[in-house]
């Protein structure tokens, strides 16, 4: 019985908790991508950089608050700087729409041209970030690092395995729940949210019913800005901020959005968790887990790892390809691209 509990703790500690927090970050990112896709109808390659930009502004203001000795006690100061980052990201989104994307929308350009344009935007934001903050890895989480340390847990329960709970993980999960609830409430219950759904479903019909497209697009960018900034900051808080990482993060985010069914907000969230869990589960070495569960005669000799961790990144894409082959519209019927 103890062994069974130990094995469960191993799973919790190395798969479930990291999976949920990484999945939440992906889900928020994918939700942003899916919003742009559903309303503006293009694949936004700049999304990773928008996330990075939000995180950068948050970091700058975190430093500012720290220098002024303003803090939140046990909570990271970044939470205090987050609203500033969100506002800056929204402004960035709206500026990039006004000066770049709007023109192509009015021209009714094909989606692939808009995707190219978003690559240009990606380069520009990427350069701005590097010019402002450089390319170094930045750790900006302060306050209490652990809610529960592995050692504490061991003492508390008397088990062999410890369960560590980082505060950044708990913050990620709480903020994600809050933000997702708000987003879905907004989409389902408010008039603006309903008009956005109508616009996404059938543009012509929405226009005929008197929905103002500019207003819908404006709201969309606000939501995208909030989601992107929060996702970027949470990722940075959890794993440390590094500008280069965010370009690599774009691909798992796209994979999440597509696997869940692109254009479907709920699908994006589910897709995020699917991608995160499969990345972690496929590359985790289960040896410890089986050592607890199986009798010692059956103990595995190897690491019992399906793929080495080097392939973490490839996993999300293999899933994307498999989903494309079996069910091109994603888990929750999005648009067939």
């Amino acid at each position, binding site marked *: 019985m103890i062994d069974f509990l130990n094995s469960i703790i191993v799973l919790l500690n190395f798969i479930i908790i990291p999976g949920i927090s990484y999945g939440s970050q992906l889900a928020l990112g994918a939700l942003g991508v899916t919003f742009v896709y559903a309303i503006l109808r293009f694949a936004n390659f700049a999304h990773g950089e928008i996330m990075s930009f939000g995180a950068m502004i948050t970091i700058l203001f975190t430093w500012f608050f720290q220098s002024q000795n303003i803090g939140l006690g046990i909570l990271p100061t970044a939470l205090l700087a987050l609203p500033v980052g969100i506002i800056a990201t929204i402004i960035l989104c709206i500026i990039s729409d006004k000066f770049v994307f709007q*023109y192509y929308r009015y021209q009714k350009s094909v989606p692939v041209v808009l*995707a190219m344009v978003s690559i240009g935007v990606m380069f520009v934001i990427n350069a701005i970030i590097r*010019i402002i903050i450089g390319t170094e890895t930045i750790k900006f989480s302060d306050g209490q690092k652990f809610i529960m340390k592995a050692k504490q847990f061991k003492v508390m329960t008397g088990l062999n395995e410890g369960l560590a709970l980082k505060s950044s993980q708990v913050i990620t999960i709480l903020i994600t729940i809050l933000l997702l609830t708000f987003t879905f409430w907004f989409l389902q219950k408010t008039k603006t949210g309903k008009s956005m759904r109508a616009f996404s479903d059938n543009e012509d019909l929405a226009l005929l019913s008197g929905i103002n497209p500019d207003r819908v697009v404006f709201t969309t960018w606000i939501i995208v800005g909030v989601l992107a900034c929060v996702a970027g900051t949470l990722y940075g808080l959890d794993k440390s901020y590094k500008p280069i990482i965010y370009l690599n993060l774009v*691909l798992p985010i796209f994979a999440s959005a597509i696997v869940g069914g692109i254009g479907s907000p709920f699908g994006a969230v589910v897709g995020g968790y699917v991608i995160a869990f499969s990345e972690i589960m496929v590359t985790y070495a289960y040896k410890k887990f089986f050592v607890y569960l199986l009798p010692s005669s059956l103990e595995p000799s190897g690491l019992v790892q399906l793929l080495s961790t080097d392939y973490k990144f490839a996993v999300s894409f293999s899933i994307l390809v498999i989903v494309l082959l079996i069910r091109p519209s994603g888990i929750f019927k999005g648009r067939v691209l």
Partner: protein
Amino acid sequence: MMKFERYEWLAITIMISLFIFVGFIQGWSVSLVILNMCIISAIMTMGVNISWGYAGVINFGVMGFLAMGGLAAVLVSYPPIAESWQAGARGLGISFALLVVLVIAVMYINKKVIQNRNRYILNSLIIFFGILIIRHFYLNATHNIEDVNPAIAGFLGGLGLPIIFSWIVGGLFAAGVAFVIGKVALGLRSDYLAIVTLGISEIVVSVLKHEEWLSRGVKNVIGLKRPVPYEIDLQNADWFINLVTYLNSSKLNNIIDVSDRQQVLNNLIIDGSGIFVKLSYAILFLIVMLIIFYFANKAQLSPWGRMMRAIRDNETAANAMGKDVVKQHLIIFVIGAAIVGVAGAMLVTLDGLFTPSGYRPLRFTFIIWIMVIVGGSGNNLGAIFGGFVIWFSWIEAAPLTTFIINQLTVGLEPTNALKLHLLDSVPYFRYLFMGLILLLILRYRPKGIIPEKVRHS
């Protein structure tokens, strides 16, 4: 054969004069280094341009195909390592044979079992256990190979052939990968296809990065043989010394002192050998570029090229006319990828080393796409022009930025924090330039600098 318009001649003149300009300002060695990379970039751009410009098939997997070309350079030119073969060849052979069996089994199931649910269950079971068995042999074999002299070897090595053959092999490797990708993904809409090809190219690169038995992974392969002479050999070759003496005879004759003259001659020989090597590369690359350019144009003007344009402009109509759109898409995707693969092998040949971790999407996929868009999709000369201009500005962006920053902050003290910070971040301004160039071109000249010629026939 095609005739150039006046503005096209202008473009060619601009390209050539840029290099002459750099040659005089920064030295001929710098100019030739940039020229070599420009030619390789131009070939990559032509590869992408063939699939995107001719047929509208998007290919964001440039990085992966380049890496396949690079792998070919290693596998063709590196001498074989006998010990490694002894250590692991059998295990690898077994696991490969088992893989073939597995694939056949899956295909057989797909054919025989009709009910969807049973098919999925059977397939996943077979794949799961098959992979477990294959992994056993495979991991043993690769482990043995990687243990052979890991400091300098630890991989299978190559065939030990002249590296120039790899340019063709690289094309074939890339074509092979492209065929598989095309089979899987070409039915998708274009922006979706972009994401998928981008992802698969990442997978290709991560395989090369981590399968050390094949490519030595992140430990890199260095010291690949060159197709051109080495500087040190040239410096000791009589004919080369005579050539340098002859070319600089007037300058040398002015120096009366014998030891001074010898000193000057030695310096000239050292400089000259570097330039000679780069020039030989440039000539080799130029030949490849012109061959590809010739055939690409020929193909574009042929009935096949016309069919491709028809498919690009109206897929449904082309389909109704009895053209096999899916097959043609696959063909042109593979051809484009093959050309990119050739460029990838040339890139590794030029560097003399293979560094899988150096393949990054920003540098090797998106920049190439900027070249295509800026140059003019659907026009081969435009592709070459785009490759030249963008690579040129990519390299020259740093000196230019330093100059601009110094001009703008001329009033500030040299120790001013802002000025120092800006000068520190000079390398990042090139991304800003690239982004702005792309956005401006897409806005004001969406067909590129040298647009495709509309043919009415």
